[in-house]
């Protein structure tokens, strides 16, 4: 440790210097205040022993100068003075001194004071060091946060939102939300909505949810079914996140043609279907662990099903909503949420829940991200291709001279394992049939393919679907029969051809089943157009130039106009 001794008396200087040197300190000296400031700057001592009464510049002035010069570092200054009255002491402390010692110097007391001041100086150094480190961290943290914020703001695809159908409110506990709500439309015109809630909250939760976001969009866009999407999300989260991190999620897929809802709920609170009359008609509790907990082999992607007869709305929330505590730690509760839900459509339920919740948590600390989503299950949305008249499209589909043919045959094993439609759509994308036709072609192909499989091979009776409870039965039976399927195939034949300068797509789907009474089915459909079953086929008929069945009814051919 280096000590600066300032005294105008050479005897005192010598005495103190020798004394401190024998104690093992390094010393430097100055004869007056002005010199003291210069030596201080040049030598950077760790402690200063300063006489008060000196020529040129006294000890108080020198101390004030030193304090002014060096604000980054605290160096203790000990005054020596013959004046020991309180007034003098106060003056010294005011000038920036730290302690006071009377002359003549008591050597024993001096040693103790030096040691005490040295201890304080060490602590001070440490505090300064930590403060600097903290400041640097804060700045780095702010930069990182800005970048993360930017990334997260851009990863949620706002262009995919469906404001007419889906309303969402997300209230993060911190700067970042570990809750996200996403919507995306599949090429088959199903609306997929995902509410995901990653473990914890803040930036770490927000980062954890990113893999889910990306996969959800890309899988939906490619037309994968809900179980395939959920399985992929689980695989992603399991692979990317550590064991103690996971993502609770409710994923809903809505088909506005069939009025069906498929839902997979893993670790999210109950999801409700509330009729326009205000009755909670259906509740879907979590039936799976959250995404990222189970290995692929243990993971169950089976969704739950529902078909609505009366118009209504789906409501879902993250666990932050029922668990939100008020200032006396009373949670908002699921009971209160349900009470607010059970009101007729058009009575401002969404806003009411939001307002009630905000009132509830006012003055309390928000511990978790809160989100609320409602999805309208009513009239067919405007984007469904219902009103499109056949063959009138002005959209061109790639090069009109292109012609190709694609033939694919899937056996029992492939029918069980593959999500065949996205696969075929992927080829169609490569062959550039154009964005406009993509959705419609997907719908036609999907309808014919599913009919071939469900009715042609699995011999499922679509009348099941007319009964609201029958839908689940239908799905269960479908799974059973699919598992037992053998020695059969579905053949898909796609051909782009030209006739009279018109560009057309022929879609043929053939199954190896016994066929069915297609003439009777179509007649019945036309008589009762509002029934659920066969509605898809009617849509196909509307969208295509023609739809014909041949053979025993096990071959369907649709002609679709591309330009």
């Amino acid at each position, binding site marked *: 440790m280096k000590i600066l001794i300032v005294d105008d008396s050479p005897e005192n200087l010598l005495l103190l210097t020798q004394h401190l040197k024998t104690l093992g300190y390094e010393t430097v000296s100055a004869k007056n205040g002005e010199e003291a400031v210069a030596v201080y700057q040049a030598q950077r001592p760790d402690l200063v022993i300063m006489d008060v009464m000196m020529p040129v510049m006294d000890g108080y002035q020198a101390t004030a100068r030193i304090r002014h010069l060096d604000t980054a570092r605290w160096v203790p200054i000990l005054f020596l003075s013959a004046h020991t009255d309180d007034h003098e002491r106060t003056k010294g402390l005011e000038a920036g001194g730290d302690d006071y010692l009377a002359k003549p110097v008591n050597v024993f007391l001096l040693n103790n004071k030096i040691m005490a001041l040295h201890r304080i100086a060490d602590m001070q150094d440490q505090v300064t060091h930590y403060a600097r480190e903290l400041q640097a961290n804060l700045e780095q943290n702010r930069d990182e946060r800005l970048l993360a914020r930017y990334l997260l703001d851009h990863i949620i695809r706002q262009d995919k939102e469906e404001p007419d159908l889906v309303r969402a409110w997300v209230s993060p506990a911190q700067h970042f939300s570990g809750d996200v709500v996403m919507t995306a439309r599949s090429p088959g015109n199903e609306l997929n909505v995902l509410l995901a*809630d990653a*473990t*914890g909250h803040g930036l770490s939760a927000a980062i954890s949810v990113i893999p889910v976001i990306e996969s959800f969009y890309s899988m939906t866009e490619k037309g994968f079914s809900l179980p395939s999407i959920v399985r992929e999300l689980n695989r992603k989260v399991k692979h990317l996140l550590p*064991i103690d*991190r996971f993502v609770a999620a409710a994923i809903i897929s809505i088909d506005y043609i069939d009025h069906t809802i498929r839902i997979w709920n893993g670790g999210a609170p109950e999801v409700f279907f509330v009729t326009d009359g205000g009755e909670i008609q259906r509740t879907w509790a979590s039936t799976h*662990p*959250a995404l990222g907990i189970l290995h692929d082999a243990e993971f169950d992607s089976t969704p739950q099903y529902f078909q609505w007869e009366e118009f209504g709305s789906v409501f879902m929330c993250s666990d932050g909503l029922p668990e939100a505590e008020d200032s006396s730690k009373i949670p908002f509760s699921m009971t209160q949420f349900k009470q607010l839900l059970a009101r007729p459509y058009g009575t401002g339920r969404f806003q009411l829940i939001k307002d009630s919740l905000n009132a509830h948590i006012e003055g309390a600390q928000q511990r978790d991200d809160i989100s609320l989503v409602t999805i309208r299950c009513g009239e067919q949305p405007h984007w469904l291709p219902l009103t499109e008249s056949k063959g009138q499209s002005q959209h061109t589909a790639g090069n009109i001279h292109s012609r190709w043919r694609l033939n694919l045959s899937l056996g029992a094993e492939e029918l069980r394992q593959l999500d065949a439609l996205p696969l075929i759509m992927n080829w169609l994308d490569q062959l550039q049939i154009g964005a406009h036709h993509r959705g419609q072609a997907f719908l036609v192909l999907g309808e014919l393919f599913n009919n071939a499989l469900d009715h042609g091979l699995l011999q499922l009776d679509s009348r099941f679907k007319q009964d609201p409870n029958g839908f689940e039965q239908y799905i269960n039976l479908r799974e059973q029969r699919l598992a037992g399927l053998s020695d059969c195939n579905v053949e898909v034949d796609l051909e782009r051809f030209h006739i009279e300068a018109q560009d057309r797509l022929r879609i043929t789907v053939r199954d190896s089943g016994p066929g069915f009474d297609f003439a009777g089915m179509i007649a019945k459909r036309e008589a009762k157009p509002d029934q659920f079953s066969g509605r898809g086929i009617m849509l196909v008929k509307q969208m295509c130039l023609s739809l014909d069945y041949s053979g025993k009814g096990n071959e369907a051919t649709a002609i679709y106009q591309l330009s």
Partner: protein
Amino acid sequence: MASSVSSSVSDHKGVLSLNGRFDFSIHRDFRSNYENILNADGVNELEVNLNGVDYIDSSALGMLLLLREKAMEKNIQMKLLNPKDSVRQVLEVANFGRLFSIA
């Protein structure tokens, strides 16, 4: 109420007892206590006593999953015991019944 974690080992059975709010704030205590149990010789059973827990959040569920993984590595049977109704509900929503034996 302040949260606390304690552990004891007798014979082949380790008991981890939790009290108060079970969330990320107790993760250090949680870890040092389960390490005591997992590192003890001859333990093949681990009981996590949730009797005193009145709140559990998702990061706590994550901590339980991590412990499950570590217990499985050492072939230790893990059980969750005596959750209060509110805690049991959270475990049910998370479908933890599929992953843990809960009594």
